[in-house]
């Protein structure tokens, strides 16, 4: 889905830096949001990277915390395919399994149509995204 895949692309690139960040696990969280619950367990910090509609210019990256946003997603609770990241974080807190710090990097897409490649707006900024994320890991 074109720019929707930016999170996966970045985590794959970051995985190549695992020697530089031995205390970091780079994980493709997939679409099963409940996976995050056990991935959070025992962690001090979580950095989440995803395509995000923030009504910004395409390609814009923004860093924020869960407290700075609210969920606009309505859940019907009928399928495991529907998840809300903020609810997952809330559950993790209630279970005393939430990292002390959660940082979210949202990247505004240009295009989320059926396509295997990113838009040029995002492609040309990949190195910038990686620099910002690595600064967070440092």
């Amino acid at each position, binding site marked *: *889905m074109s720019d*929707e*895949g930016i999170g996966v692309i970045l985590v794959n690139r970051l995985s190549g830096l695992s020697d530089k960040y031995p205390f970091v696990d780079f994980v*493709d969280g*997939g*679409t*099963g949001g*409940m*996976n995050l*619950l*056990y991935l959070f*367990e025992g962690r001090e910090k979580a950095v989440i990277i*995803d*395509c*995000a*509609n*923030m009504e910004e210019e395409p390609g814009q990256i923004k860093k*924020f915390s869960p407290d*700075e*946003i*609210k*969920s*606009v*997603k*309505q*859940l*019907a*609770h*009928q*399928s*495991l*395919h*529907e998840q809300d*990241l903020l*609810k997952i974080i*809330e*559950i993790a807190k*209630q*279970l005393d*399994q939430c990292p002390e710090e959660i940082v*979210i990097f*949202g990247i505004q*897409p240009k295009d*989320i149509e*059926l396509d295997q490649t990113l838009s040029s707006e995002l492609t040309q900024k990949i190195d910038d995204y990686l620099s910002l994320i690595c600064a967070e890991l440092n």
Partner: protein
Amino acid sequence: MSKNLNIHVEHVTRVEGHGNILVNAKDGKVEKVQWQVPEAPRFFEAMVRGRSYEDIQTIVSRICGICSITHSLASTKAVENALGLEVSEQADKVRVLMHYSEQLQSHVLHVGYLAAPDFFGAPSVVPLVAKAKDVVLAVIRLHRLANEWSDLIAGRTTHPVTLIPGGLTKTPTEKQFRELQEKLKNSMADLTAVAEAVLSVAGNIPDFTRKTEYVSLKQDTPPTYTFYHGDITSDQYDGTVKINDWKTVANEYVNDQSTAKWTKWHMDSYAVGALARFNNNAELLCDPAKGVAKLFGLEKGNCNPFMNTVAQIVESVHVVQESIKLIDELLTKGLKTETVKSSPKAGKASGCVEAPRGILFHEYEFDKNGNCVAADICIPTNQNHANIQKDFEKFVPEIIDEGEDAVRLKLEMLVRSYDPCISCSTHMLDVQFV
């Protein structure tokens, strides 16, 4: 209580499209009740055309982020059947282990996060944490186990990478299998805790039955509670149908109220999933699983769709126990390094496995170069849609006196009990700054 109902539940962002519930009743008479599923096309059957037989499972595993191993297995079996490829006994057993991991993963997620809140009277798992924290923690531990199990054998949790036509690219070591086996043995405490928690609120499971045809795999040689081998059967049919003839079972057809196709066999609809497997094969469960079924009073012939969730708990115990035995079998015989080779040829065949939510069919045709020229995939949730509709038609008149809110909740619970997996949507965060 008013006997006029006007319920229109429209679900947004859930699964890939909408699953709508429509009920109109006046003066106690049901005028209209519909389960509407506007399933948008996914185009997988078109996407694989022109692709090599070696690429098929990689592509179709993307149909679902929860049942990806199942789609990979069904498609790989279809490719192997079409090209006449044999699989070694070792690879076959390792694949069954891989498949069991996904059954556990999917079942505990459904039971813990979707069905349990209903039984505990919670609107979602979020408030359930306050009511039953220890149970939620047990579910999370079981989920972790199932995912680590998938990682070990499939190469990763979602979208397996070790499956290839003819076998596997990699098999775990003896040490890894023993470690997994130990974790499986230790997981029984958590499985028991989840079963007991659901049992404590089993009185909240709606009491509803409707004569239903249940379709699943059946394996006679050797007799097995099967998810992987066998032919197609139902509780209305004395005998089995070969996998390649699956279309004579599904009989898919289009109807006006849904873009999703419906299916039927000996009755107007049929059900697939854990309850279907139980109703066709319960006597072949391992003893601990039978014990769990007995606790809940679940017996062969049960026609309450809400008991599908209980059947999932029973199956979770079964797959864990069977996996412990299967690892012993593999290691007693000794693991071998296997080289897999295949070459293209023309052929057409089907592959079938039981997804956690029911029987799944994949069919492919290849040209002499091994490129796909046609594909047909029939997923379990599609096969349940007509049955959900029929359930609605019987259920609504029975509960119409309970008022709009209660009717709405019970119909939603009914849909949830089928553990629907219409399709998996990719998504992005939708963010609003406060």
